[in-house]
């Protein structure tokens, strides 16, 4: 280690994700009713809650796949609703993993991983391929680079979609129930990849029903219900000693 002065890296000053007073309605249906929420750099925050409580909507507001109705969203201190902000540039630094994988079915695995690298990052073909192979290796699918998504199992597809996001060298990753569409025996492989990521210090926001993962890997657990954050805290605290009645009711059903 050299004795260079310790400069704050990008993102260490402000939280990676800071959501303040977020409201979202679809027509007259108010789905998010004032959410305050943050994820610090290097942390893994898991979001749990019953179906329809607004978890996906919150996650999708973080990279503005959903347009917030009111409130503020700061990514590394930058207000992404500001008109002057290049939203595409911000999104390229936020990896996103969907429940339904959403791999590009007309492209093979390698092309799935290089398309955005080349069109967004402007990387050369050689560089993009090299990075793609590296991330594929990381998720344990090096031998699948020329396969098409339709020929992969759900678990493999989800790992490819994680690799696709990682190929962009994102500052943080969003996961929306990444294992909910998988056969039970394939869940472990995907969670293992996510665990590795967390141990490397990746900033992660994970909507999940995997309480084991939340307990073991999460730095913070957030329980949502009815469009509000009901309770948050250390995963072990929230899971074994929930303070709020609604949290207790939910946990008694899923645990």
């Amino acid at each position, binding site marked *: 280690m050299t004795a260079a002065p310790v400069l704050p890296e990008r993102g260490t000053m402000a939280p990676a994700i800071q959501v303040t007073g977020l409201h979202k309605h679809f027509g007259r249906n108010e789905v998010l009713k004032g959410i305050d929420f943050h994820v610090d750099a290097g942390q893994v925050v898991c979001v749990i809650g019953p179906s329809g409580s607004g978890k996906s909507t919150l996650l999708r507001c973080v*990279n503005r*796949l959903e347009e917030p109705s009111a409130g503020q969203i700061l990514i590394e201190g930058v207000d992404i609703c500001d008109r002057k902000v290049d939203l*595409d*540039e*911000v*999104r*390229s*630094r*936020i*990896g*996103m993993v*969907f429940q*339904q994988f*959403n*791999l*590009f*079915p*007309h492209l093979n695995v390698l092309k799935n991983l290089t*398309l*955005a690298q080349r*069109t*967004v990052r402007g990387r050369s073909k050689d560089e993009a391929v090299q990075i793609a192979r590296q991330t594929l290796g990381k998720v344990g699918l090096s031998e699948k680079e020329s396969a098409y998504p*339709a020929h992969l199992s759900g678990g493999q597809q989800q790992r490819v*979609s994680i690799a*696709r*996001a990682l190929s*962009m060298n994102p500052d943080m990753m969003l996961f929306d129930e990444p294992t909910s569409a998988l056969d039970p025996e394939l869940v472990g492989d995907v969670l293992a990849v996510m665990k590795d990521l967390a141990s490397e210090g990746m900033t992660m926001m994970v909507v999940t029903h995997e309480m084991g993962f939340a307990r073991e890997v999460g730095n913070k657990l957030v329980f949502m219900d009815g469009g509000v954050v009901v309770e948050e805290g250390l995963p072990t605290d929230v899971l074994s000693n929930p303070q709020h009645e609604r949290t207790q009711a939910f946990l008694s059903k899923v645990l």
Partner: protein
Amino acid sequence: MTRRERAILFQVALYVALAAGIVALALVADWPTIRENFWNKGGVDWADGNWGDLITIGMVNTVKYTAIAFAGGLALGLVLALMRLSPVAPYRWLATIYIEFFRGLPALVVMIFMSTGLPIAFGWTPPGGTVGAGLIGLIMVAGAYMAETLRAGIQAVPKGQAEAARSLGMRPGTTTVRVVLPQAFRIVIPPLTNEFVLLIKDTALLFLLGAAANERELTSVAKDFLASGPSAGTATSLVQAALLYLIITLPLTQLVAWLERRQRRSVR
């Protein structure tokens, strides 16, 4: 009689009726006259019969005109489809008006308008003479139909595809071109092939606009052979043209059927 026996009896009766009909037609028909009129020896002779012009002029031009009309219609249709799905409302209105207008008109009316109406109204003649004008008319109508096909194809691509691309930071244009359209095209290959077959037949309308001898498409050549050449005065050239049309269209319609079967099997 059991239900099964009755069913068998009914089937036998159908076959008997069919056979009786065929026999009656064969007895009534004047076979030598029919052969003379529809398959005249002179007309089908390879050495100096109709085949030469029918193939080297008619069929070649039909394929050429179809290809031009298809390519033009596809380009126009793509622009219209994207306009129809545009977030900018006036683009949507314009595209909708255009599509509804030109789908509601006979192609022939538009073709005649392009070849005769435009020069009169605007003093402007479209390039390529009568054939060029007719083709532009055909493209304008085909574009309206293909726009609807393409729009349906684009909308059939799951929303998650564009979301995944956008979440990676891809711009809207890149997302459309690299992610959505390739999948949409795959979906619309069968209906577009059908569109191609319809266009092959629509090029026959060019006959009504008239064309120079070596610009004639298949129907025009066949029509001219009704009054001239070795089979003049018989319908032989029309039968020959019909065969040539089928040689082009049958493989294509079979291809569509095969593509549709394959698509149905590989639902991902």
